[in-house]
């Protein structure tokens, strides 16, 4: 029981921190695109690096905080139907549908790992003028998918706890 608590707290801590850090990437993203517009329009000197770098920053701001979004319940869903159910029923539904969640994220971890490994072995580069290496970005993917998986496990444990709590309350 103690171990579960430590695990839950650690996962929340890591994902919270990753989310906060990723939100800062928006600052260089906006600045780089703005700089590119100014350099191109006012000085007629477009850069060859702005697009590649901003694309990578964008990917980071989306992929890495996947677990953070789950932690903050920010992956939207349609609750028109389920909100009519009792909290207990909703928790049970969540537990059942988590099979699909683990299937999706499991495949993402596995396949993104495979893609990252292939990309690393061939030292893949982007096919642009600058041609920066793309394999570091692809290696971020399995890490991000794993963080999301951890957060999903944490949610699963919490949901189980809720059910157990409910049963205890009713038992007395």
């Amino acid at each position, binding site marked *: 029981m103690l171990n579960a608590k430590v695990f839950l707290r650690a996962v929340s801590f890591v994902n919270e921190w990753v989310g906060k850090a990723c939100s800062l990437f928006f600052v260089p993203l906006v600045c780089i695109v703005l700089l590119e*517009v100014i350099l191109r329009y006012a000085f007629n000197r477009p850069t060859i690096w702005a697009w590649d770098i901003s694309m990578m920053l964008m990917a980071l701001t989306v992929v890495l905080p996947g677990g953070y979004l789950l932690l903050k319940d920010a992956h939207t869903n349609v609750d028109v139907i389920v909100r009519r159910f009792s909290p207990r029923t909703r928790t049970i539904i969540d537990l059942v549908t988590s099979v*699909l969640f683990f299937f999706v994220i499991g495949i993402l971890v596995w396949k993104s790992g495979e893609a990252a490994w292939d990309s690393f072995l061939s030292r893949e580069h982007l096919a642009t003028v600058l041609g920066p290496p793309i394999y570091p970005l692809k290696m971020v993917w399995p890490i991000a998918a794993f963080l999301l998986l951890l957060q999903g496990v944490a949610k699963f444990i919490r949901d189980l706890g809720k059910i157990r709590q409910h049963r205890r309350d009713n038992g007395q």
Partner: protein
Amino acid sequence: MTTGLMTGLFFLSFGLALALGFPIAFSLLGVSMVFALIFLGPTSLYFVFSSTFAGFTRDVFMAIPLYIVMSSIIQFSGLGSALYDVMYKWFGSLRGGLAMGTVVICTLMAAMTGLGGTAVVTMGVIALPEMLKRNYSKDTALGCIPAGGSLGPLIPPSAPAITLAAFGDLSVARLFIGGIVPGVLISFLFCAYIAIRCFLNPELAPALPRETRATWHEKLVSLRDVILPILLVVAVLGSIYTGAATPTEAGAVGAGGAALCALIYRRLTWRNLREALLFALRVNGMVMWIMGGGVCMCAILSATGASRWIGSLLVELPLAPIIVIILMQLTGLILGMFLDGATIKVITIPIFIPVVVALGFDPLWFGICFMVNTIIGYITPPFGMNLFYTKGIASEDITMGDIYRAILPFAGIEAIVLIVCIAFPGMVLWLPNMMG
């Protein structure tokens, strides 16, 4: 198993996952993966990942984070309250003036942001309590805010237009320009509706008492406060129009400009910025995961032949082509009651646009009508984003039922404009076609 049966099963399982409250992004990915595994074999799963990866790094989607950051900076920048002060002085003496003014401000904000929620969140905090304090009836005060906010995605710049362009293979610039005529028309009709209704029944929205009205001198001085917002609109739209920035890059121009305005209004604190960035991270992550899931689903639907099957089914329907068009628009409208705009476009547009072309209609016209269509979805119960935003901001004694009642006439006006747009393609197309 026939393609038809498989397609049916596909959408049935997708609907089931959504109905069970499973997150939209994972529903898109999950159902696609299961069907890929069954119908294309385990080797196709690698392709599933690579199409999702491609979705996250697609050029056009760069606009989405930039537009979201722009909007979240505008929310705290103080632009909203500056505009509101001017509007209060100029329109306060009219019956229903504050409600009309709110619509006008929402229209202006729509021209600097690309999302539906920005104006709702900003104006909801400033304008709603003021109108209620001035004895405006609940439905006059409540309706104009989510309705005005829904103009955000229609009047350029617009993040939803970019999604539409990406999934329908249309020109972003033309969709932007095409949104202007229906957007301005809707804004005008909203004001006309409020004016007529309040003229007939002054109880609904009394004019400000004489002693609190602004003098002409105050009115003229207050115009100073419009300068910054107008400059921001000019910077964003002007940079697109002159070609200084692409529609994507205009998001960064707007974000930079909004940050500058916030600095001038002394609102650019570290705390405000940090909160705005975290808000942007959540909204952006939500939208982009849906986009990634959508790209993945499109790839699977076309690899299994399902999109072609639906397409030929729609083309060969024994109905007049215009009826098929109307059916597709209706599908969008009905889905809009339950899903958000991004999800609807991701699912339907890649299937609909080839059908529109095969039936001999202009896909740009269809796309613009579809934009009008999805903004109706923003304000129709039970699932209208803007209604939830309004509820989140309004005081405790305002129920979801109050908001539903208040919004219906406005949704009706938007529906009329949609019908007009479908009936008169020339009205929608003359402006974008003038671009050459």
